[in-house]
């Protein structure tokens, strides 16, 4: 996605913040979407609080997924784990065909209702893009660089920490970005199994036939996704610019 111009991005952020902190200001806008006596702004809890919980769920799942995926990618790209490389590639491809709803539904019998199945589903689903990109990043390093590092007498550990990981970082970050954007949207489905996310607002809207609820829940998630996506993309650009020079 091409980044929105900075001004537009700032405007989206300010509107989002205003909506989360003072949703009452936006009531006249949303009023036309609901029937006469129905509330136009979500009134069964604080939108700000739900947004924070939503972000926390996504953050915890992505953090765990990043840690495991990058560790695994490092393992299978070392000499000792090279045997696992082709298999792990095909497992990633297989894993990506699992629908997120199915992962969520299947983890309910094991972990019960609430936040846990959502975290597990987001974690498992987030693993794949990060692992795939970390693999790509670590296996497509320019041979001249790795040869030079070896020639300079660096140990395997030094090469990993000082050369390979920094060079692969932008590609790994792309994987994290993909994973975060998918997780932000998928987390809403977690509310069907009673997780506290912005999905609660959308589902409340679907149940009471309140379009304003559906719209505000959906747009908050979309705005979060666009802003986080752009921020991570800017970070990638800054990092790949630094390593290239």
């Amino acid at each position: 996605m091409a980044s929105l111009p900075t001004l537009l991005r700032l405007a989206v952020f300010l509107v989002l913040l205003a909506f989360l902190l003072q949703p009452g200001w936006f009531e006249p806008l949303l009023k036309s979407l609901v029937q006469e006596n129905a509330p136009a702004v979500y009134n069964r809890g604080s939108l700000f609080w739900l947004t924070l919980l939503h972000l926390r769920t996504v953050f915890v799942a992505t953090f765990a997924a990043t840690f495991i995926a990058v560790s695994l990618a490092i393992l299978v790209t070392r000499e000792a784990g090279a045997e696992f490389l082709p298999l792990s590639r095909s497992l990633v491809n297989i894993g990506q065909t699992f629908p997120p709803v199915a992962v969520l539904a299947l983890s309910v019998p094991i972990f019960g209702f609430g936040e846990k199945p959502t975290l597990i589903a987001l974690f498992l689903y987030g693993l794949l893009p990060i692992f795939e990109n970390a693999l790509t990043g670590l296996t497509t390093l320019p041979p001249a660089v790795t040869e030079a590092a070896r020639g300079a007498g660096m140990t395997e550990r030094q090469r990993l920490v000082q050369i390979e990981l920094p060079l692969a970082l932008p590609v790994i970050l792309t994987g994290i970005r993909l994973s975060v954007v998918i997780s932000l949207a998928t987390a809403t489905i977690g509310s069907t199994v009673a997780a506290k996310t912005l999905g609660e607002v959308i589902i409340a809207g679907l149940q009471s036939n309140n379009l304003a609820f559906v719209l505000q829940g959906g747009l908050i998630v979309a705005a979060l996704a666009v802003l986080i996506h752009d921020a991570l993309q800017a970070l990638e650009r800054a990092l790949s610019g630094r390593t290239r020079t």
Partner: protein
Amino acid sequence: MAIGVIRETERRTLPFDKLGVIIAALAVYGAFLAPFATFRANRIVQGEGKAILEALPPSLGYGLLALVTFGIVVALLKTSVLVRMAAAFAALVALCFLIGSAAGNLVPADNAYARVSPASGFWILVFAFALLVADALTRLNPGPGLRLLFLAGALALVGGMLATGRWDGLSILKEYASRADTFWAEAGRHLTLALGSLAAATVLGLPLGILCHRVDRLRATVLNALNAIQTIPSIALFGILIGPLGWIATHVPGAEAIGVRGIGVAPAFVALFLYSLLPVVANTVVGLAGVPRAANDAARGLGMTEWQRLVAVEFPLAFPVILAGIRIVLVQNIGLATIAALIGGGGFGVFVFQGIGQTAMDLVLLGAVPTVVLAFTAAIVLDALIEVMGPKHSRGKAA
């Protein structure tokens, strides 16, 4: 001298297969420590786990344990790929076959309420041996035809188990038996949603992608708009469309007659269609941009018109990349169609969400398992197709 060197390297490397150690550990846990089947007095109570020897008659139980042990030894040692494949396959067939026997063995013949379902041990064993098959397959690196053959074999095995009634005693099939009619109706709706929206997105997305390829200004706008749609969570997009479609149904004459309604299939179809557009359009653009300039120049030199060039040169060269986009859409749509159930659009999601509502996990499985099987089958078939269509040297995933 040379023989001495080889002996020394042989001595230094372990006789064990590294992945085999993991598979063996999983299989030992699955076979000897975890329960094989769960027995429940009725549909929603907590179950109790039964080990292999408790769940099966002794002859079958010991037979299964022997087969699993053989599989473990084959996995552990550095054996040939074909032996590994055969051992894993034999174990998988036995597991599939015997889980049906467990149901008959655990439930007294006259008890209609008791439920038997596969427990963690069964799933872990299936996972361990599926891993062994996957590893053997990866090492064999089969071509597209052989992969399709393996898929057909696996589907035939499952189909055979279902058709012969081997699994009728399992609780997921008891759920199926009590709603067989709705199951096929929802299956039809699920496929209509997933395939129909894909067809619509292809019909509109291809010309749109070609247009975006030709007109630079249009490209950024269209791709940005389609990207923005992707960020809206599916349940919200499904919900948001209820409003406009309801309005169209009541205000546009004839719209209601062709099935446009505020809730139900229509908003689900439109939402899936909107999600599908991005991969189709983006891959069309990428595919056309990747057509070598030399090919285009040669076509121009031959005096081909714009249209001839598009149909005879550009499109065939871009086709594998476009097909990769269609694969993404199809797998994604099969998964997303489950969410249609939340707005009355039907599909396998009906069972998933009903099951979640009733905390009846067998019902959840009745919706989730066919969805996973469908998505998996679609991915393998289209991957094979992409490989057949694509240039010979580029194996693996395009785009």
